[in-house]
C-alpha cells in the first residue's frame, strides 16, 4: 500500500527527534549505542527495554520451541553487545536485531532440529525474510512502545478497538472499560490524536 511506504518514511525521520530519557540524555538508538560503548549501563538497559519483545517474538516466530527461543534471545543480545563498536548504521538497529535473530534461529534449527511441529524450514531461513515483514515487525514494536507511553485508559481502549484479535463489539468494549457506548467514538478520536503525538517522539 502506498500509505505504508509513507508511514515508513515518517518513522525514519522521527528518530531524529526522539524524546530524551528520564535523566534528559538523548535516547535515540545512535546515542544509546554510543553511550553503551562508553560503558553506560543505563543506556544498555534502555535498548533492552525497547527491543526485548521484538527480539523474543522474532525468535518464537521462527518456529523454535520456547526454551530454545530464550537461548536465541540471549545470544542475540550478546552478539549486539559484542558488536556495539562496529554497527555502521545505528538507525537500522531494529533490522540488525531482526536479521540477527533469524540467523541465529536458523543456526540453532540446522544444528539441533529444535523447531516445533508443523513449522516449515523456509520459515526460519533468513533469506526468506522480506523487507516488508521487517518493517511490519518494527512498526508493531513502535506502536506497542507508543501505547505503553500513552498509558491507560487510552491505551486500553485503542487495544480493544484495533488490536484485539476477537474484535469485541462496542457493547463489550463499553462493559470492559466502563465507558458509555455513545462516548466511545469521541474518546477514541481523542486517544488516537494523543497516540499520534506520543509516537512522534517514540524511537
Amino acid at each position, binding site marked *: 500500500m502506498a500509505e505504508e511506504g509513507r508511514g515508513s518514511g515518517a518513522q525514519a525521520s522521527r528518530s531524529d527527534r526522539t524524546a530524551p530519557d528520564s535523566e534528559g540524555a538523548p535516547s535515540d538508538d545512535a546515542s544509546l549505542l554510543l553511550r553503551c*560503548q562508553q560503558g553506560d549501563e543505563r543506556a544498555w538497559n534502555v535498548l533492552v527495554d525497547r527491543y526485548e519483545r521484538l527480539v523474543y517474538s522474532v525468535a518464537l516466530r521462527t518456529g523454535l520451541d520456547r526454551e530454545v527461543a530464550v537461548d536465541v534471545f540471549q545470544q542475540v543480545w550478546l552478539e549486539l*553487545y559484542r558488536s556495539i563498536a*562496529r554497527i555502521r548504521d545505528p538507525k537500522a538497529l531494529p533490522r540488525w536485531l531482526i536479521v540477527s535473530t533469524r540467523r541465529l534461529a536458523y543456526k540453532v534449527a540446522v544444528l539441533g532440529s529444535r523447531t516445533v511441529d508443523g513449522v516449515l524450514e523456509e520459515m526460519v531461513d533468513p533469506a526468506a525474510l522480506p523487507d516488508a515483514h521487517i518493517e511490519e515487525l518494527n512498526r508493531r514494536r513502535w506502536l506497542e512502545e507508543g501505547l505503553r507511553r500513552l498509558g491507560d485508559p487510552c491505551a486500553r481502549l485503542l487495544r480493544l478497538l484495533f488490536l484485539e484479535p476477537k*474484535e469485541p463489539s462496542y457493547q463489550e468494549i463499553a462493559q470492559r472499560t466502563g465507558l458509555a457506548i455513545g462516548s466511545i467514538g469521541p474518546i477514541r478520536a481523542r486517544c488516537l490524536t494523543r497516540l499520534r503525538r506520543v*509516537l512522534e517522539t517514540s524511537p
Partner: protein
Amino acid sequence: MTARSRGKTARSRGAGEPPVHPSLLDWMQWLRGRLDGARAAQLQAHLQECARCTKDRELLAPFYGAVRVGPLSAPPRRARERVRRLPAQRPAPPAPARPHSVRWPARDVRGFGPASTGESAMVARSCPGAEISVMATPPRGDGRWRIEGRVWLHQPDARAIGVVLAHDDHVLATAELRDGGQFALEEIVSTGWTLEFHLPAGGTLVLKDPFA
C-alpha cells in the same frame, strides 16, 4: 464487515461533502484486507475527494502493518535480567584499531598435511608482542566453519590477546588468550568473515576468509 462496523458506513450528507463517509472501523477492515475489491476501491476513491476521511486514515497510520503482525511476546524475566547484566560481566570488544591484514600462504598443491588437502588453510605469523598460528576449515555441508589456533606472547605476563570472529558489523564469537592459549571456534558463518587478533601492544592483526 464486523458487527462493530456494520451499518456505520452511510452517514448524512453535508453541504459540499461527498455522500458517504466510511467509518474509522471501515478503514481498519480495509487495512486488514477484509473488504472486497469493489468496496476497497470505493474507499480509495473516496479518499481522493474527502479531507476529513484522509485525516481519519492518518490517525490510523500507526496501525498500518502492525495489525497484521500480532502482539509481541515478553521474554521470561530471568532471560531479560541476564541480558541486562551483560555490561557488568565483560567489556565489549573494540573495533579494530590500526588493522594490519595478514595474507594466507599460497595453497600448496603438491604438499602433504591439512593445508594441502584443499580443505583447510593454515597460517603462522610473528607480530608485535606475539606469535600466532591459525587453521581454518570450511564447512562440510552444515555451514559450520572450524577456525582454530594458538598464540604465544613474547612477554608471558602481557595483557591477553583478544580474538574476534566478525562478519560485516556482527561479532560472532570472541576468545581471550594468554600465553600458549588455544582457541577453536565453530560457527555457521557465510564467506567473507574476518578473524581479528587484538594485540597486547595495541594494533590489530586481521585474517580474511581464505576462501572468499
